[in-house]
C-alpha cells in the first residue's frame, strides 16, 4: 500500500477554501496533519472560525492553528466583495465544538515538519504569510518541507488588480520569501484555475449525492457563481481545490519548471507574478508552473471525492 503523504493545508476560508477542505478530508492517500489559518479573504478571526466550524461539521479530527493577522509588512486587504463579510457569503454552520491548538501556525508547521523528517508537504491556498514567518523563524525548515503547492498568481492578468491575483497581491513579500527559499514549489495561477471551473449543473449533481457535506459544497460554490465571469461564464473557478488536487495527483495537469518571481516594488504591478515561460529572456529555474488541467478528469475526481461522504454514511 502506498504510504500516506503528510500534509498541512494553509488557508483563509473563504468559499473555495471551504470546498478544498471538504475535498481534502476524502483524499485517500493524504494524511492531513494540520490546518493553519491566515488572514486573507476575510480577517483571521473569521477564517479561523469558519475553519473550526467546518471541521466540526465534517467531524474531522485534525489540529487547527491560527496564523498571521496580516501580511508581513503591509496592511491587510480583504476580499469581502467575493466571500461576504464573514467569508462564507452569508451561509452559516453550527457552532464549532473545538478550539485552535495553543501554538501559532508557524510553530505547529515546524513541529510537524520536524517530526515528519522531510516528508511534509504544504498546500497553501491563501496569502503566504504563515509560511514566510515559519521560514524566518526556523532557518532549518527549508530542508524539512518536501514541496509547497500554491494557489496564487497570474501571468495573463489579475483578478484583484489588472496585474495581480488576490493571494499574492495581499502579501507579495511573503510570496517572495517562498519563491526564493529553495523549497520546491508548484504554482497554480489564475491562468490554470480559470480553466478548472465547475458548472452549475455539476454542482447540483454533487449536491444531490445525499450527504450534508455535498450539499454544503454545492451551496457555498453556488454563492461564488459571480466569479464565473473569469471562466467565460461557464462556471465557478475552483482555485483552491485545483491546487489541492494537483498536490494529490498531478496526472490530469501539465506543468513546467521555470523561473517564477513576484513584483514587490512596482506601483502598478504590486504582487504580479512573473515567469520566463513566455519570454525570450530565460532565468534560472526556481519552481514549477502548473499550466493546464484536463477539466473533465478534474471534475470526475471531485465527484468521486464528494461521493465518499455518502458511502461513509451508508457504512
Amino acid at each position, binding site marked *: 500500500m502506498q504510504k500516506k503523504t503528510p500534509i498541512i493545508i494553509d488557508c483563509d476560508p473563504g468559499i473555495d477554501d471551504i470546498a478544498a477542505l471538504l475535498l481534502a478530508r476524502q483524499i485517500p492517500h493524504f494524511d492531513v496533519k494540520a490546518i493553519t489559518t491566515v488572514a486573507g479573504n476575510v480577517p483571521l478571526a473569521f477564517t479561523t472560525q469558519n475553519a473550526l466550524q467546518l471541521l466540526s461539521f465534517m467531524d474531522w479530527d485534525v489540529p487547527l492553528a491560527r496564523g498571521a493577522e496580516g501580511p508581513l509588512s503591509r496592511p491587510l486587504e480583504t476580499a469581502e466583495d467575493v466571500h461576504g463579510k464573514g467569508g462564507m457569503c452569508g451561509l452559516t454552520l453550527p457552532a464549532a465544538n473545538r478550539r485552535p491548538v495553543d501554538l501559532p501556525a508557524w510553530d505547529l508547521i515546524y513541529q510537524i515538519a520536524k517530526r515528519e523528517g522531510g516528508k511534509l508537504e504544504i498546500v497553501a491556498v491563501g496569502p503566504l504569510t504563515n509560511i514566510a514567518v515559519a521560514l524566518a523563524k526556523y532557518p532549518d525548515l527549508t530542508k524539512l518541507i518536501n514541496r509547497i503547492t500554491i494557489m496564487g498568481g497570474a*501571468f*495573463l*492578468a*489579475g*483578478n*484583484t*488588480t*489588472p*496585474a495581480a491575483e488576490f493571494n499574492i497581491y495581499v502579501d507579495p513579500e511573503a510570496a517572495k520569501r517562498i519563491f526564493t527559499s529553495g523549497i520546491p514549489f508548484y504554482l497554480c495561477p489564475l491562468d490554470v484555475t480559470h480553466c478548472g471551473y465547475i458548472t452549475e449543473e455539476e454542482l447540483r449533481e454533487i449536491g444531490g449525492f445525499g450527504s450534508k457535506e455535498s450539499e454544503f459544497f454545492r451551496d457555498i460554490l453556488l454563492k461564488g457563481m459571480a466569479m464565473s*465571469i*473569469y471562466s467565460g461564464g461557464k462556471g465557478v473557478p475552483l482555485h483552491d481545490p485545483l491546487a489541492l488536487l494537483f498536490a494529490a495527483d498531478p496526472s490530469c495537469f501539465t506543468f513546467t519548471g521555470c*523561473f517564477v*518571481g*513576484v*513584483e*514587490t*516594488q*512596482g*506601483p*502598478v*504591478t504590486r504582487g*504580479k507574478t*512573473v*515567469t*520566463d515561460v*513566455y*519570454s*525570450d*529572456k530565460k*532565468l534560472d529555474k526556481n519552481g514549477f508552473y502548473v499550466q493546464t488541467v484536463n477539466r473533465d478528469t478534474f471534475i470526475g475526481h471531485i465527484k468521486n471525492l464528494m461521493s465518499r461522504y455518502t458511502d461513509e454514511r451508508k457504512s
Partner: protein
Amino acid sequence: MNYLQKIPIILDGDPGHDDAIAWMLAFARQELDIRGVTTVSGNASLERTTRNMLQIFTLLGGRSIPLARGSERPITRLPFATPSVHGVSGLDGPALPEPDIALSELSGVGLMAKILRESETPVTLVPTGPLTNVGALLLAHPELKTKIAHISLMGGGILKGNWTPAAEFNILADPDAAKIVFESGIPITMAGLDVTEKALITPADFERIRAVGNKVAVIVADWLCFFYEFHKQLGYPGAPVHDPVAVIALVKPEILTIQEMYVQVETYGEFCKGATIGDVYKVSGKPPNAKVIMDIDRGAFVDLIVDAVSRY
C-alpha cells in the same frame, strides 16, 4: 470626408529589420499618405537608425518624404545598451544604396509638430521603436494632441515579454514615454508580442518574397534571412516580424483579432519595469484606452508582404 481619402501618417522607428519592412509595407500601400518619418535610438544608436532610415527611403524611392533625426536617449532615463538582434549597423545583411536624400533640419519632434500643425485633418502616428519622440511631442506640444487621430504602435505584450520576462524591448527602453502615450487619451492600437510573435515569416516565405525578383524584394528577403538567424537560436520556427503589424492595423484590420482593454505601463519595479498591464478581466473599473491586437491570420500576413514587395 471622402472615404477614398488617404490616411495621413507619420512613421517613427528605430530601423531595425522589422521597422524597415513595416516602412516598405506602408510606402507600398495606396491608402497611406506618409507625411514624414522620424528616428529614435533603440535597436541601434540614433546615428545608425538615422543612417538606416536614409538608406531605406533611398532604396524605396521615397525622395519627397521629409525625414528627421529624433531622440537619442529616453526622456528621463540614461541611454540603454542597444541589442544585438539587428547586427552592428542595426540593419545588417544586404548592402544598401548610399543615401541620396537629405535629412530635415528639424528635430524628430519638431518635424512631427510641423506636420500636425499644418495638416487639415488629424494625423495617425505609427511608432515602431521606443516611444520617446511621441512622448516628447505630447509633453512639448499639448496643443497638438487633438491633431493626432490615432497612435498605432508596436510595443508591449499582455502575456509575453522578450527583453525581460515581463517587458518588451520598446516599452522597456523608455517606460516613461510609454506611460505618457498610454495615458494621453488618444486612441491607441497596440501591436504587442501577443500578436507579433505570431506574425512569423518562415524560410519558405522568404523564397516566395525573393522570387518576386525586384531589388526591394531581394533585399527584404535578405533582411528576413538575417533577422531569422538570431531567432532561430531561440527556437522560433520563423522570424517574428513585429513592426509591420502596426501598419496592418491601418490597412487590413480584418486579418487581426483585437480586444479592447485598459492598459497601464509599469515604470518601476524589480521585475516589471516596462511591462504593459492589460485589464483583461475588467477589475479596474477603468474604460478601455487601447485596442490590443491578440492574433493575426499568418497566411494573409505573408500574402500582404508579398503583395507589398511586388508593388516596387
